[in-house]
Structure formats: C-alpha cells, structure tokens
C-alpha cells in the first residue's frame, strides 16, 4: 500500500535538547494510527513537522510521496491543501463566527461555490452536534463545543490526511465516545489517513488499530494497539498501565 506519511530519521532539537531523534514513521494511505507519550516528548511537534509548520533539523518527510521538508513555498501550500489539522488548543479564530471558522478552509481553497460551502458547513456542524450555533463567536462556546468546532474545521474540506492533536482532551466520556464515533464514520466515508495524538490512552486504544509511542525523542513502540500491554519495553508497559513504579 502506498504511504501517505513517511518520516525518515527525523530530528528536531530546541537548544541542546533533542525532542525528536532519528524518528521513523510510515503511515499507509487510509490508515488510522495513534501517537502517545509523556508530556513534552514531541508529539505535537511531530504533527507540526508533518504539515510544515515547523522545520526539521534533519531527516526527510514525505506526504503522499511528495517531499515536504525540502519543498518550496508553493509546493508546501499545495501539500497543505490535502492536510487537515486539529490543534491542541483548538486555534479557533476569535474574530470569526462558528460558521466562518468552519467555512474558512473551503473559502481559502477557492474551489467550491458559496452554495456548496454553506451546505458543507451545515452538514459538518450537524455531524458534530452543533447545528444552531453558526452565529456564535468562539468566546461564547464551552470547551467541548470549541473542540467540536475545531474538529468540524479540520474535517470540512475532506482532506486526505487528518492530524488530530488531543481531539478529546477536556471532554466528558460521552462526548469523547461520540467524537471517536464521528471520526470512525468520517474515515469510513472518506478513507482519509488519520494520526491522533492523545493522552487518553484507553480511549485511543479502542479506536485505533495501531499505536506509536514516543519517549525521550525516540519511537519506543510501533505496533498493534492491543499488543502494547505486552511490549518488551518496560517504559512502554509502565506508561500504558499508568504504574507508579518503573523507569519513567
């Protein structure tokens, strides 16, 4: 199967501290994968590298076979048209209504008519359970609603690669389950490749068939999510079980 995402020996440091040290990741087209790890291990950074928001110090990044890290501004813009991103703190535009926030990727792509934009925004907001909130500003929404608006904005343009940074953080279990259900339905419909970063290890394991774990700049686990409990790496086992005693 062709790779949608491929990182080879990816490195990134801040000062003398390496956050990513020769990381190799390959995601097949249409695959759903979860990324876990302790705080400040470079999970969000990896997502930002994958969409060219941060420059790597070394290694190669390929998105749909196209080299991203060495591409020109125009090539980068072209690649980003196929990537949807949900940011950790939602990154909703404060000065826009919910409708304008969700419509933004479609408006910017310039490839859709005003009528179609209206229809797609309406459909997507209904899918995330936010019909009737179109005219509200982000400041008027609860944390969970903001998350769902950000999710709608990531999904609305139906990109081939979806990167989610903590899609369920701060949400109650019912909303979390609905979000995963929605992502599953979206993936079944569009066959998009999804990479999800989450601290909710249990919820993520139920949703994704494959898990990656980052620790101290290295990829410590890359395999089926149901086998992670029996990983040979003690660090991985301790993290997944949430045990107090161990190398972490």
């Amino acid at each position, binding site marked *: 199967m062709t790779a949608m995402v491929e990182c080879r020996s990816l490195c990134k440091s801040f000062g003398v501290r390496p956050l990513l040290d020769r990381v190799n990741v390959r995601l097949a087209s249409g695959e759903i994968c979860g990324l876990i790890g302790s705080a400040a291990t470079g999970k969000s950074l990896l997502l930002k590298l994958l*969409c060219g928001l941060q420059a790597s110090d070394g290694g190669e990044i390929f998105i749909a076979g196209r080299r991203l890290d060495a591409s020109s501004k125009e090539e980068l813009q072209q690649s980003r048209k196929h990537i949807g991103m949900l*940011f950790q703190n939602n990154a909703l535009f404060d000065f826009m209504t919910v409708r304008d926030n969700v419509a933004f990727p479609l408006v910017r792509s310039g490839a859709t008519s005003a009528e179609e934009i209206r229809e797609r925004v309406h459909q997507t907001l209904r899918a995330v359970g936010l019909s009737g909130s179109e005219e509200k500003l982000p400041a008027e929404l609860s944390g969970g609603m903001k998350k769902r608006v950000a999710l709608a904005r990531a999904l609305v343009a139906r990109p081939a690669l979806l990167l989610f940074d903590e899609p369920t953080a701060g949400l109650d279990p019912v909303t979390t389950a609905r979000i995963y259900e929605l992502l599953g339905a979206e993936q079944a419909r569009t066959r998009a490749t999804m990479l999800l970063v989450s601290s909710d290890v249990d919820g993520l394991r139920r949703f994704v068939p494959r898990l990656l774990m980052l620790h101290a700049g290295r990829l410590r686990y890359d395999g089926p999510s149901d086998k992670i409990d029996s990983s040979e790496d003690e660090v991985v086992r301790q993290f997944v079980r949430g045990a107090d005693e161990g190398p972490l």
Partner: protein
Amino acid sequence: MTPISLLHRAAPSLELLRHLLWRSGRGAFRLRATDFPRGEVWRQMHQIGNRSLLFVCVTLSFLGMVLVFQTCLQVNRITGDLSQVGAEFIKILVHEFGPSLCAMMLATRVGAGIAAELGSMVVTDQIDALAMNNVDPIDYLIVPRFVASMVMTGALTTVGVGCAVFAGALTAAYSFHVNPVVFVDPSHVRIGDLVTGFFKCAAYGAAIPLVSGFCGLSAQGGSAGVGRSTTRAVIASSFMVIVLDFVISGVAYFTLQSAP
C-alpha cells in the same frame, strides 16, 4: 555567548522583521492584490481612528492648555507681549508636537492592542491555523492595520491639533486675556512645516503597527508571553516615535529650513 551564537538566535527575529517590512510595504502599494478579508482596512480604520478619537482629543486639549499656560506665563514675565504666542504655538503644533504627541498616544493604545491581539493569536496557534490554510499572517493581519494606521494617524493629528489650538485659545483668553482672534493666527505656518508634519504622521503611522506587529508575532510562552510582548510593543513603539521625530526633524531642518 559568542557573536555567532547570538546571531544564530536572532536569525528568526531578523527574518520576521525582513518579512514584515517587505510584505507590509508591498501590501500598502498593492492593496487590491494583497490577501486580507474584504472591508478589513475600513474596520481597522474604525478601530485605530474612531476609537482613539476621544482619547487623542482630550489628551491633546489638556496638553495644549498646559503648553499655552506655561508659555504665556514665561512670556508675560519677560516681555509682556502675548500677541505672538498663538502663531508660534500653532507652528510648533503643526510640525512637532501635534504628530508626535498624537503618535505617542496611539503607540500606547493602538500598539498595545495590536501586540496583544497578535500575541494571543500566536500562543493559541491561530497563526499556525492561518498558515495551514495557506494564509500569510502578515498580509492578512498586518497590512490592513499598517494602511489604516498611516491614514488615521494623519486624520487624528489634524483633529488633535484643532483641539489643542481651541483649548490653548480658551486658556490664553481666560487666563491672560489674549483675544482668540489674535491667538488663532496660522500665518507663521510655512509649507515646510506642513510637509514635515505630514511626513511625521506617515512615518509614525507606519512604525506603530510594524513595531507592535513584530512584538506580537514574536510572542512566546502563554499569557505571560503575551503580556511581555505587549509591554515591549508599547515601549518600542514610543521609542520609535521619538527616534523618528529626531531624524525627521533633523532632515527637515537641513532640507526645508522649517525649524524655528
């Protein structure tokens, strides 16, 4: 820290500054080809101009009163002839105090606003979200503020000078019995004064959003970082106004001979 490592650390800031100057300058001249929301320049003109109007008018009126009162007091002690105070006051307002004091006020109100808004957009990833949609944040956010600020600094200075003259005339009339018709005498204002005042307005109007935008876009580290960038924006904008005042006044003195 070695000069090389210092340069290495400063490289992203220098790149941002270069990008900011180039794209803002180009955007101002190619407004229709620049990528920002329709009507954004008007909205920013309202934010920068209309919403600062009362602040600028009140401040310049009080400063006008203080300046005229102190000048009349001193002149009264020395010569007792107050007939030229108004004419000289208007001249110095047009080429010096009007644009500079107005810009200092705008540096605090508008500069802080721009830096805080952009800084919070940086720390909440909104700038990255713009980039994900192939939007250049400088075109989208800075250029409308840059153009609006240049236009509205001139407009606010004109109104502010009017307020200062009016307040000064009232002070001179009530405190020193100077006839307002004698006080409001623009005959000392030469074309060089107007040109100098115009250039100062344009330079200050350009500098405030650029400096504040730079501070806002280089914010780091959550709300504390936004606070730091806002403080930095106010200080740097005010400092830039003073430096530009000195440079433009100097150039004007040697080229237009407008200084008294």
